[in-house]
């Protein structure tokens, strides 16, 4: 029983038609295509659209020069990174670029309505959610949208 098990990290793809995020292993074609594993197309499990994966070289260039764009936030909310140290806030929503990231944050209690206290901003963000102390990078802190709570 005490065997060591290694699991491969999942590789996430985005459908270029419907924007659905899915794991690469979910993309196997259902029909008996003669190309088999030589087929370089991936299929979105949501809309069944087939598209080629990004070629290696293009991916390399993309990684060298790509800067992620900030996403618009709903009115009345501000990113957690804008709060001052020691301020309390209520979480409005998570605006994560990757769904997998918000899934992970939710497990630590970061869900809409929860009370989030920003303890420090440097060298990394440390927030307190209930009884949990959590360290986050500024990239992630920018994706957490909160509402300021007036100190009582």
């Amino acid at each position, binding site marked *: 029983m005490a065997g060591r098990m290694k699991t491969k990290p999942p590789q996430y793809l985005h459908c270029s038609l419907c924007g659905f995020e899915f794991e690469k292993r979910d993309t196997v074609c259902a029909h008996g295509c003669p190309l088999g594993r030589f087929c370089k197309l991936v299929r979105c499990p949501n809309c069944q659209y087939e598209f080629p994966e990004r070629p290696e070289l293009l991916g390399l260039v993309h990684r060298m020069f790509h800067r992620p764009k900030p996403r618009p936030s709903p009115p009345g909310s501000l990113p957690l990174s804008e709060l001052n140290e020691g301020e309390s806030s209520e979480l409005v929503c998570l605006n994560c670029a990757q769904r997998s990231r918000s*899934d992970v944050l939710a497990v630590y209690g970061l869900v809409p309505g929860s009370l989030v206290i920003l303890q420090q901003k440097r060298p990394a963000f440390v927030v307190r959610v209930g009884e949990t102390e959590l*360290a986050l990078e500024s990239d992630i802190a920018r994706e957490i949208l909160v509402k300021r709570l007036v100190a009582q």
Partner: protein
Amino acid sequence: MNCAEEIPTTTTAECTIVLVGNPNVGKSVLFSKLTGKYVTVSNYPGTTVEIASGKTTIGGEHFAVLDTPGVNELAARTGDAGVTCDVLRDYPDAVVVQVADAKNLRRALLLTLQLAEFRRPQVLVLNMMDELDGCGGHIDAARLSELIGVPVVPTIATAGTGIEQVRESLDEARVPSIRMEAGHETRSYAETAAYLRRANEILSQVYTRVRPSKPTFAQKLGWWATDPVKGSVILLAVLYFTFWFVGLVGAGTAVGFLENVVFGRYINPWAIRAADVILPFPHTHEYVRSDYKFEIPLTPAGGILLHQSSRDILAPTYSLDSSATLGWWTQVRRLAHDFLVGQYGVITTALSYALAIVLPIVTTFFLVFSILEDSGYLPRLAIMVNRAFRWMGLNGKAVLPMVLGLGCDTMATMTTRILETRKERVITTLLLALSVPCSAQLGVLLAMMASVSFGAAVFWLLLNVVIMIAVGWLAGRLIGGPSSDFILELPPMRRPQLSNVFVKTFARLEWYLKEVIPLFLLGTAILFVLDKLNVLTRIARLGEPLVTGWLGLPKETATAFLVGFLRRDFGAVYLLDAATGPHATLTPHQVLVAMVTITLFMPCIATLFMISRELGKKTALWITVFIFPFAFFMGGLVNQIGRLCGW
């Protein structure tokens, strides 16, 4: 609960208890209290997934106990949770004992609700009740048990309080009455939010906080440790202590004693004499002078000298009697003799290397490491260095293997397993092999530094850091694949428990010896074969023009570089002699060039084996093809630029 009644088909099979819980809640302590067995469990996220099993007897019934890795949720998204789900599926008649941190009931209840979907008899153990009291909280266990429909047992596992009650409660384990709508294989954000709302409802009925707690000293220490200023001071203090204990006490005092006295004066001469009796052929061994100093180190330069001795000892090197002619049978005996106790012999090289040099270093290192781990400092260390590591395409979690690399790169390469993505593992491994000198290298480098100016030493350090960041940055850009997010839970700071630290250290050492000693034996065997076939001298001759022309070093150093790769201390000692010995032949400029080159060199052949085992042959080949030319290139560059500037 009685297993035999519930599952009549498997009357002979023993019942199983599966321990499930969030990370860092004391599952393993409870496991060892229940079974009397110890398991090494590192609380660092993403550690190799292993399941420990043990046995216990409760009321005459035998139970098998399984300890699963800490999980925050039961989605198969991460390796740990996947394994826990598999265990629950593989043992359909098991009793689930959920261990919870009483201070953090909310997240424990999230897990309880997810576990409830499995419809198994369950018990909830509220551990660390003492810490809950300490922060002024109170949980109504009876009410909680009513609400979720399973027995709730408060415990303090480290003190052994409540363990008997856990045993007794197993009879009353029930399928939870509380239930959410049918769950899915992959849990979504919305689902988790709904579960947490339910958890909050329960919490509001059972959890009260009596008084607003004042921060304790441990809590304050925890905050200081992540503060930009105070945290840096603590970081430096921790680093210096680690360096002193591992680098000076372990790699200096302990290695000196084991290598020079235990192996050099007793085990090796004894083995040589024994081999001479069993495998006789006409030869005479040489004697060498062995100087030994026993001192308590204070700084790399010196310490308090307590004892000094010097004597002549039997060496593995020998000369053949000139008159003798060796028949084939004698040749076979000589080969066997050399294989065991020769210059590259199994006993005189591999065992003394593994047990006298590496073992004391890793022992002291694991000791410090266990203390740091038990105290809850490691995640805070990761916070402090996260930004710098981001430049290198890594995140703060990679600090662990990097620090470990200063002890032994082979071991550090193995611990890159804790990193979540392959990209991070490759970059960390590359940087470890390239620019993190292991303790054996570091010892020699520090000694060589004595013969160069202070400015040159600083130049060497800065160059190494710049290379590390530049190569890491480039590798982060060029190597594909995702980087993991830096989301790290901070456990509370605690005073490490001495017994726990020792047990952890021993358990780790056992694991280390099993994994690494075979690699040292293999490396020495290869060195032996290459030496016998005269391949070593031939390769060294091929490399001479490069060494004399491009690096500007004497031609003998070619052999030193080559042997140094196969066995670190041999090559290093030659360079050290040439740099600082009584007949020093190297100029300070040449010493600097040699220092730069050997720092960038791959530490040793065992590291190469480990890289190929962890990342595959192809990646190991790429890393090797990059490192060796790069080390020579940088060394040569320093040489040429230095000459131009007239150093």
